[in-house]
């Protein structure tokens, strides 16, 4: 079975400071990893994904994520946070093997960026 953990329910950061939203995963086989963002009362929007290749993945709105196989992590990062980045962030994992055909989503992390 696959699983994903987002250990922080909420992350607070000041505008202009770097931000990190944490994600760790467990799958059998090679992982496929995704980050999505959700603004209030809206559907999720895709930010970025890791399939293979470079461990540092760049995505939309200046976000990036680093795949770390030894630590089974895929943390989302941004060098300089904006107030408009305040939203709910979801990590998801799949592997295409061992029953992991459909991505599993984490519980979400609420990011609050203070002016």
């Amino acid at each position, binding site marked *: 079975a696959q699983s994903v953990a987002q250990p922080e329910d909420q992350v607070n950061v000041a505008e202009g400071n770097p931000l990190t939203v944490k994600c760790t995963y467990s799958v059998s086989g090679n992982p496929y990893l995704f980050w*999505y963002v959700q603004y209030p009362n809206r*559907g*999720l929007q895709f930010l970025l994904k890791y399939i293979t290749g470079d461990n540092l993945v760049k995505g939309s709105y200046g976000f990036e994520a680093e795949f770390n196989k030894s630590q089974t992590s895929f943390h989302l990062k941004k060098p300089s946070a904006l107030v408009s980045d305040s939203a709910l962030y979801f990590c998801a994992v799949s*592997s295409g093997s061992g029953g*992991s055909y*459909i991505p599993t*989503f984490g519980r*979400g992390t609420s990011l609050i960026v203070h002016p």
Partner: protein
Amino acid sequence: SQTIHQWPATLVQPVGSPLSLECTVEGTSNPNLYWYRQAAGRGLQLLFYSVGIGQISSEVPQNLSASRPQDRQFILSSKKLLLSDSGFYLCAWSDGEPYRNEQFFGPGTRLTVL
């Protein structure tokens, strides 16, 4: 470009009444389709997914059902709603292999069961 529609946007229904939520996708063929429920603005619960017409997989046994009458149409139904069915229902689509391609979500339906 591809778009995904959901309706209605909001719905208030009494306990025991039927439910029908509709999702349609435009601009793509043979999409994978998904229904999720999100309670209290947090985690997503996968309810159903479909990789083709007539192929529906249920993830959670409950009083909900799903159908795919056309290639790009996905319907979520219930014969009798429960209070616990309240939540934010999201439809999504992806193409190709579900495990390696991102999903695109609709705007959602806010369901309140009273």
